[in-house]
């Protein structure tokens, strides 16, 4: 459907069609040096645009659904041959009204809703909400619960980076590694199911702790999976990371320079791949990583260009390795004791106040600003999501690449459109 370059399609994904009307007007594109005037429009063939009088540049509108897009959004490309010369991005197709829903629902349902902020990294949505609420209400989290939270978040980080690998491999058309990686991610989802009873929407964290203690054998299985993933990482390197075709498609493509990162506010692995050491796990002791010995992998520019697609991929692979180290240490230091201060009440009230909490999610810095007015539901819950910054850099990053690189570049940026649109 969406590959037809000009005709406007699905107006049904938005309640009102007139939003699209305005877009229609800008449908044709004239290069700046085109002088023919009004007769251009008369000859313009709307059904088969490529049969219109030839101009140097082609306009191609991709989206909202297309194989090369990692999520639903619209890309307006101006193509010079196969090279993209300009591009604009439009999102908002997955707007769920999450922030409004959180305002309307009681405090107790904050956590299950926060799962849906970014379904892939459900724990981080819960974590950021819980940390903020605990700060407002001055709730103390037992040490055991903190460690369980850290174990869950590191497992999620591994799973998120594995699915990143899947998306990147799919975009370059490598099928086999996709199946290997998904197989291993499945083991992590099994662990979530064992601990929380659900694979994606965990609903496990509570204000002041976690819902339940670890089940029997959970810690052993975590260690088992750490060992397994370690073996698998080597296999991924053999089959994919340093594959000739893959490196040829990623070395030096779509380099994110440092000034663009600072201009767009990019955080997380994307920023670290360009050599910026920016990790809340190290800089913010409140997250509880201060007792753990680990490194923050940054891009090393092995391909000759620091911050290209391959660097972004390698940083994530190395982060998986570091997460395994963290998990091993966490399983050693997990203390006995309570896992929750007090059980969930039906109509829980949080005192008046506000808090801004940050966590280091797999995509970058995830922040949450919660304002409470002392009533049964929050006054305002606002999320600062890393994907917004990643989207902001696309119009500057993409021009100059070929359209075959477009899916690879988009996949390498790790866009979680669910959290960008909320």
């Amino acid at each position, binding site marked *: 459907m969406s590959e037809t370059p000009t005709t406007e399609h699905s107006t049904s994904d*938005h*309640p*009102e069609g*007139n*939003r699209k009307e*305005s*877009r229609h*007007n*800008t449908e*044709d594109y*004239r290069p*700046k040096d085109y002088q023919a005037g009004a007769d251009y429009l008369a000859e313009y063939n709307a059904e088969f645009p490529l049969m219109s009088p030839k101009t140097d540049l082609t306009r191609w509108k991709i989206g909202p659904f297309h194989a090369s897009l990692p999520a639903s959004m619209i890309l*307006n490309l*101006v193509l010079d041959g196969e090279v993209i010369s*300009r*591009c*604009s*991005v*439009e*999102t*908002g197709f997955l*707007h769920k*009204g999450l*922030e*409004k829903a959180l*305002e309307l629902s009681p405090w107790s349902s904050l956590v299950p809703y926060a799962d849906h902020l970014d379904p892939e990294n459900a724990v981080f949505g819960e974590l950021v909400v819980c940390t903020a609420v605990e*700060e*407002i209400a*001055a709730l103390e989290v037992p040490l055991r619960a903190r460690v369980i939270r850290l174990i869950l978040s590191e497992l999620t980080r591994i799973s998120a980076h594995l699915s990143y690998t899947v998306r990147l491999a799919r975009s370059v058309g490598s099928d086999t590694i996709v199946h290997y990686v998904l197989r291993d991610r499945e083991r992590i989802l099994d662990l979530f199911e064992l601990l929380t009873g659900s694979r994606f929407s965990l609903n496990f964290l509570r204000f002041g702790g976690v819902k339940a203690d670890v089940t029997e054998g959970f810690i052993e299985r975590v260690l088992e999976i750490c060992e397994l993933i370690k073996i698998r990482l080597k296999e991924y390197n053999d089959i994919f990371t340093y594959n000739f075709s893959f490196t040829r498609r990623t070395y030096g493509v779509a380099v994110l320079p440092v000034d663009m990162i*600072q*201009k*767009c*506010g990019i955080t997380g692995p994307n920023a670290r791949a360009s050599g*910026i050491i*920016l990790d809340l796990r190290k800089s913010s002791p409140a997250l509880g990583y201060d007792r753990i010995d680990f490194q923050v992998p940054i891009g090393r520019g092995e391909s000759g260009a620091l911050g290209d697609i391959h660097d972004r991929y390698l940083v994530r692979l190395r982060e998986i390795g570091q997460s395994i180290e963290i998990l091993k240490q966490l399983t050693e230091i997990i203390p006995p004791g309570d896992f929750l201060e007090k059980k969930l009440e039906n109509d829980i009230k949080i005192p008046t*106040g*506000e*808090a*801004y909490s940050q966590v280091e999610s797999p995509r970058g*810095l995830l*922040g949450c*600003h919660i*304002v409470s*007015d002392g009533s049964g539901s929050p*006054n*305002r819950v*606002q999320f*600062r999501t890393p994907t*917004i*910054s990643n*989207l*902001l850099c*696309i*119009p*500057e990053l993409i*021009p100059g690449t070929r359209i075959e690189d477009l899916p690879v570049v988009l996949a390498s940026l790790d866009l979680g459109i669910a959290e*960008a*649109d*909320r």
Partner: protein
Amino acid sequence: MEKTLLSQHLNRLLKDKVLEIVPFGRSSLMTVWIEAKSLLEVSRILKEDPELCLDWLENLSVAQLDQMFAVSYFLRSYRKQNSLVLRLSAVPQNMKSKIKIDSIASFWPMGRPMELEAEDLFGVHFEKTKAEKLEKSEKQKDDRASRDGGDAIREGEFQPKLLPSGWGGYPLRKNYVFPGRQ
């Protein structure tokens, strides 16, 4: 920077533009209340001050407390450990009208999508400065998009459009009525 040092420094820098410096919730952050009209000047000072070096707008949050809208800018520095919350309040003429605040996108470009979101959902219109508008129109003189008005898509931009154009009301305001629930 130390908390007390920071507030002293801010008082020295901004002089009478600061209304109040209070702690942000229970955290170690400082909230600097300013007036809406002095926003651009304060932003310029904060960004260009070599000691503060607040070159990163981490978050932009709007919250409604009764009739009053509080706009908070969470500022941070890439190179230094500084961070603070810049906050201003605005009251719309009535609950259906837009609020106009100056846009800080010329200082912190990463704030633009968040501003657009707030505009969609809260009806807080972040006005671009005249210089910026001029630059934009220079750049897109030939483009049909600019002739069609502000709603059209422009090249080289990221636009989050959380609501269809012409959507009635601002969903995140407290008095918002859901369609079909009058």
